[in-house]
């Protein structure tokens, strides 16, 4: 019996800025089964990070969740008080952020940042927390952990900082982990290591992981199901294999084509146009300005998510007619 750990339903998170209302997340629905890794894919501005922040309810001002529901392990998160949410953050759900240089507090040692969290959620003394922090560092593969523990973030390399950020996220053994572009800011060689680390830790802790990325390569490597986002809306949802071999949405096709492969002989295809303005998003289908198959109906009416087959949904008027190119596995 597959248990649904996270059910996001028609989530809308808007940012009320001086320049206008930014519709960062505009009707996103995602389901995550327990123990699985799912991918949340899209370019910057697609709403992937804000979705994760919305689940933990830490959306920064001037953002606010304006509509929808979020259920975690059967409980309605949006009706919980701030105190109740705080008890969940860390022990139940956590985020690893993209840039470890800015996600670690520059004025405190690694030890302090870890022990603060450990002492808060688990009833530990300072000494016990320090010991736990040490073993956490060892667990994420940091060499000479005693030294690193006493160090300040600016004294450490990018890869090490990200491992520490991962250690921090996992310190209270959360059930759900959001990894928000965890390798984007790292060197290529380190990227692979960090991804391996995440895979290994997921297995060990039995976590459910949401992999937020724009890199289809990572999606192929790490995830079992994928949700493709664009401009705050869901374009396509499918098992990873299905998405790669038979995508049904033009945007998905374009994303797949933009990833170079060794066997490739033709030129890389670029998705024309720019990221849409989220204050005044395009009418109808939000992708239509950049879609090479777009017709008049795409400008006028927003396509609803339709079922292609079990476990595969797509939001496009023409998914039945288009013959889109996937990639052989």
């Amino acid at each position: 019996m597959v248990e649904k750990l996270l059910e996001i339903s028609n989530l809308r998170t808007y940012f009320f800025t001086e320049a206008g209302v930014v519709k960062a997340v505009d009707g996103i629905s995602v389901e995550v089964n327990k123990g699985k890794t799912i991918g949340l894919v899209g370019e910057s501005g697609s709403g992937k990070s804000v979705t994760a922040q919305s689940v933990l309810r830490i959306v920064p001002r001037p953002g606010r969740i304006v509509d929808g529901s979020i259920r975690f392990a059967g409980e309605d998160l949006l009706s919980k008080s701030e105190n109740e949410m705080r008890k969940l953050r860390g022990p139940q759900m956590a985020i690893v952020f993209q840039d470890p240089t800015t996600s670690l507090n520059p004025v405190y040692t690694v030890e302090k940042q870890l022990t603060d969290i450990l002492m808060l959620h688990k009833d530990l003394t300072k000494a016990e927390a320090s010991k736990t922090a040490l073993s956490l560092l060892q667990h994420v593969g940091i060499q000479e952990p005693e030294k690193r523990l006493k160090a300040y973030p600016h004294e450490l390399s990018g890869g090490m900082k990200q491992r520490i950020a991962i250690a921090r996220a996992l310190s209270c053994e959360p059930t759900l982990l959001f990894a928000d572009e965890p390798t984007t800011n790292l060197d290529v060689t380190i990227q692979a290591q960090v991804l391996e680390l995440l895979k290994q830790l997921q297995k060990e802790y039995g976590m459910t992981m949401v992999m937020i990325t724009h890199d289809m390569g990572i999606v192929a490597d790490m995830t079992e199901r994928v949700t493709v986002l664009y401009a705050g809306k869901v374009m396509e949802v499918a098992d990873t294999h299905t998405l790669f071999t038979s995508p049904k949405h033009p945007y998905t096709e374009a994303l797949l084509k933009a990833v170079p492969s060794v066997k490739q002989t033709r030129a890389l295809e670029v998705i024309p146009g720019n990221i849409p303005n989220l204050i005044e998003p395009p009418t109808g289908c939000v992708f239509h300005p950049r879609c090479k198959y777009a017709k008049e109906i795409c400008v006028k009416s927003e396509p609803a998510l339709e079922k292609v087959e079990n476990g595969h949904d797509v939001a496009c008027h023409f998914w039945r007619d288009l013959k889109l190119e996937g990639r052989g596995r």
Partner: protein
Amino acid sequence: MIPVFLGVAILTFGVGNAAGNPIDLIRAGLKYPSPAVLEALTRYYHLDRPVWERFLYWLWDLLHGNLGVSISGRPVLSQIGPWTITTLELQILSLLLAVVIGIPVGVYSSKHQYSKMDYAITTTAIFGYSMPTFWLGIMLIVVFSLDLGWLPSSGAASVSYLWWGNPFLDWLAHLILPTLVLTYVGLATIVRLVRANMLEVMRQDYILAARASGLSERTVTYRYALRNAISPVVTIIGLGFGAALGGAPALETTFSWPGLGYAFTQAALTLDIPLVEGITIIITLMVLIANLITDLAYAFLDPRVTIE
């Protein structure tokens, strides 16, 4: 530090000798010093030597605490002591109040951005540093002292009548208005700065990450955000202290507060050159010390900074 001190020394000495030598300048002023004093000053300034030697002698004397004799005949150094204390008691008290009140207000303002309270606070602050400090003093004197008679209008202590009963309360009564003025202006700067820095810091990822880890709002605001936002504030406090000292002449004159600033104004008006030079040097020293303390505090607060 040393170059600054030398720079001020050169400038002060230079201007004192602008008429060729200090004695002529003094004579151009309003007071006519006694022959004995002129004699002493001629020796002090080594007027029989060329300019650069005079400067070195003067510097040497300075560093050994010999600041010469003022026109009145009294040695400069001995007068400066009590004045310094009088100035410092006002400045330091105001600084402490401004910091203690300003930081929480700034934090509050940043957390309630765009609220009516925030708007009121920032508007009050911007008025604070748009006005001449001494003018606020004058206005307060007119209202609270001359009109209402609640507080004394001048001096640091009364001669004939003890306000509020005893010497200590009398001193306190005299302290209130000038402190109020100085604190308000200090608050204006600090509140604005703390607010701006907090807004900047609260947008950082590590604050988001701290919240994501379940830390309480209080911990996040004070221990994580403020701790990061405070370093530049410390620097500004140091600079502000220097600026306040520099502004002492106007404020102290307004309240007839018998400190270094008041003395400086009188000395400069009467062209009491030795006194003026002495006070300038002392105030410069205090500014330099304040900056040194500030630098050390900054290095302490921000582990990314090392002391050179």
